């Protein structure tokens, strides 16, 4: 059963994409570590981290695309799942600091000492264990998505109303995490990380490994998404997107279909966040900012929603643009982003990938202009499927 589903998932495009990501996971660290600086082919340290960050964004965009592009749920709060995964990873990294903090307190992170807390809160227990922390990276966003989605989808909250409450969800979390009493470092968040799995976090080998891990995680996400969207469930998701109530009359429980997509997507976003945090070295409540979640929507729209490769391309290209713009013309970046979104919505409804697809179908149509014999009903209906004038 599972093997059949996996086999079906691996169409040519998915194989190529996974192949490229696995190759990147090997080649980029190799080019960074093995080729000495200054020589042709060397990838500088900053670039490894920067592209690692892009790949974690790409994973977030892919997660959003699973719910938005395929299931029609426009979540404007997906950054929340990303940030929660990031916080779970950040908590693990905080516990690894041990007595190397400013206050040299082996039991408590610095900010807790500063707040005069005497002992570790219960919800920090266990986070010194990597496996436990990784479990939480998946469970916390997953459970939040399950509870939120169960309530929202069962009450048949759809469309713009759902988008607004997802936005409210991430905003509520933003405000909550800003509070010092929450025990997540308040305004400053979690930072000053030292080690991950015993390795110094800023060492080039660690950075290269994190890049490789992100690329592999993205490749696995592509595999998971491809398995889902190419299964019958994926077709039902598209059916829900296009005609929700019709799908209900076919006997499918639309709320569960949506819930499944939403939870899988949230878990994926959480993992992306967990890979993001050690590479950028900080997680703070700013990650819950509703504007962040909206940016993810833009990446996905630019790349092409409803495709697997689109959001990945979109996330990487827009973030490369952002890195460039915020360096060269910082005051113009938000205008450029806004213009990009308006432009894509107006002129490229299917994004960059849709544009390429249009071009390809145009050329193939030209190649095979020989029309198939139209069926009797086509003729009756007066449909002329292919122009015959070309002959």
């Amino acid at each position, binding site marked *: *059963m*599972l093997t*059949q*589903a996996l086999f*079906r998932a691996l169409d040519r495009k998915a194989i190529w994409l996974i192949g490229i990501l696995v190759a990147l996971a090997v080649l980029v660290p190799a080019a960074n570590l093995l080729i000495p600086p200054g020589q042709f082919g060397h990838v500088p340290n900053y670039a490894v981290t920067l592209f690692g960050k892009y790949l974690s964004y790409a994973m977030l965009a892919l997660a959003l695309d699973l719910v938005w592009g395929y299931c029609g749920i426009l979540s404007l709060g997906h950054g929340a799942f990303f940030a929660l995964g990031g916080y779970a990873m950040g908590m693990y990294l905080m516990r690894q600091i041990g007595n190397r903090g400013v206050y040299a307190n082996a039991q408590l992170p610095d900010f807790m000492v500063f707040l005069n807390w005497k002992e570790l809160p219960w919800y920090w227990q266990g986070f010194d264990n990597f496996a436990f922390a990784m479990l939480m990276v998946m469970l916390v966003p997953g459970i939040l998505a399950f509870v939120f989605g169960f309530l929202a989808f069962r009450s048949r909250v759809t469309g713009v109303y759902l988008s607004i409450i997802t936005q409210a969800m991430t905003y509520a979390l933003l405000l909550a995490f800003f509070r010092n009493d929450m025990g997540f470092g308040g305004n400053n968040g979690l930072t000053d990380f030292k080690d991950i799995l015993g390795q110094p976090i800023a060492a080039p080998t660690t950075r290269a490994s994190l890049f490789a891990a992100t690329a592999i995680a993205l490749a696995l996400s592509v595999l998971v998404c491809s398995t*889902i969207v190419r*299964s*019958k*469930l994926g*077709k*039902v998701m*598209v*059916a829900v997107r*296009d*005609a929700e*109530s*019709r799908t*209900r*009359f*076919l*006997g*499918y*429980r*639309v709320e*569960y*279909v949506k819930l*499944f997509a939403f939870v899988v997507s949230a878990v994926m976003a959480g993992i992306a966040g967990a890979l993001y945090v050690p590479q950028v070295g900080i997680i703070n409540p700013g990650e819950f900012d509703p504007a962040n979640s909206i940016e993810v929507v833009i990446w996905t729209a630019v790349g092409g929603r409803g495709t697997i490769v689109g959001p990945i391309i979109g996330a990487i290209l827009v973030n490369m643009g952002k890195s460039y713009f915020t360096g060269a013309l910082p005051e113009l970046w938000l205008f450029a982003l806004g213009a990009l979104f308006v432009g894509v919505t107006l002129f490229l409804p299917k994004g960059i990938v849709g544009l390429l697809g249009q071009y390809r179908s145009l050329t193939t149509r030209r190649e095979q202009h020989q029309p198939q014999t139209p*069926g*009797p*009903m*086509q003729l*009756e*209906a007066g*449909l002329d*499927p292919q122009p015959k004038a070309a002959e």
Partner: protein
Amino acid sequence: MSDKTGTMLYLDGVSVAFDGFKAINNLSLIVYPAEMLAIIGPNGAGKTTMMDIITGKTRPDDGEVLFDGRTDLTRLDEAAIANLGIGRKFQKPTVFESQTVWDNLEMALRKPRGIFATLFYTADAADIARIEDILNTVRLGHRKNDLAANLSHGQKQWLEIGMLLAQDPKLLLVDEPVAGMTDSETAETAKLLREIATTRSVVVVEHDMSFVRDLGSRVTCLAEGAVLAEGSLEQVSANPLVIERYLGR
């Protein structure tokens, strides 16, 4: 009442009001197994609202709606009712436009509807044969790999009928199936529905009187949310009330 047993669909004293307007007013109706019932009536007579009540989209304020003589449909939602074996074709053909004809039928095919059963579903030989069979019945075999959006209006109607067949329901509710069809397609549709009605119960809502004549079934005329007349088409169309309220003089 004792005559519930042996019925496929049983409506008794059903009423529903929208903002004070009684869309359905004390409606009672019975459909037996393997029987066809044609419903006619002027616009606003409550025909579509009646279908909404049977399929769980609208809850009646009052009255009894039973399926198979025992299952209370007013307590169930759309998906549960569909899985009991009630299939519905909408007035406006509603197919999944961005997917192929084949995929439309595959989704409709009667199979476990659970999330994981659907995720790991692979069409076996019997399923493929069944879909091919339905494609032949609704004459869309040559278009099975085309997107549903590219079908003509009449073909979409047939695809939706095909989806109904794939669901393998015990009761079919068919709302204006021949709108937008040519005369020959209309005649074919009547033939197909008559064939289906030999093994299943079929309720057809239609305005086209020559099509209703082709169906050759029992006819109920609705008006203002209640039954105006019942009987054969001849009896109903000779009824002075029906002539006055619906057919016109």
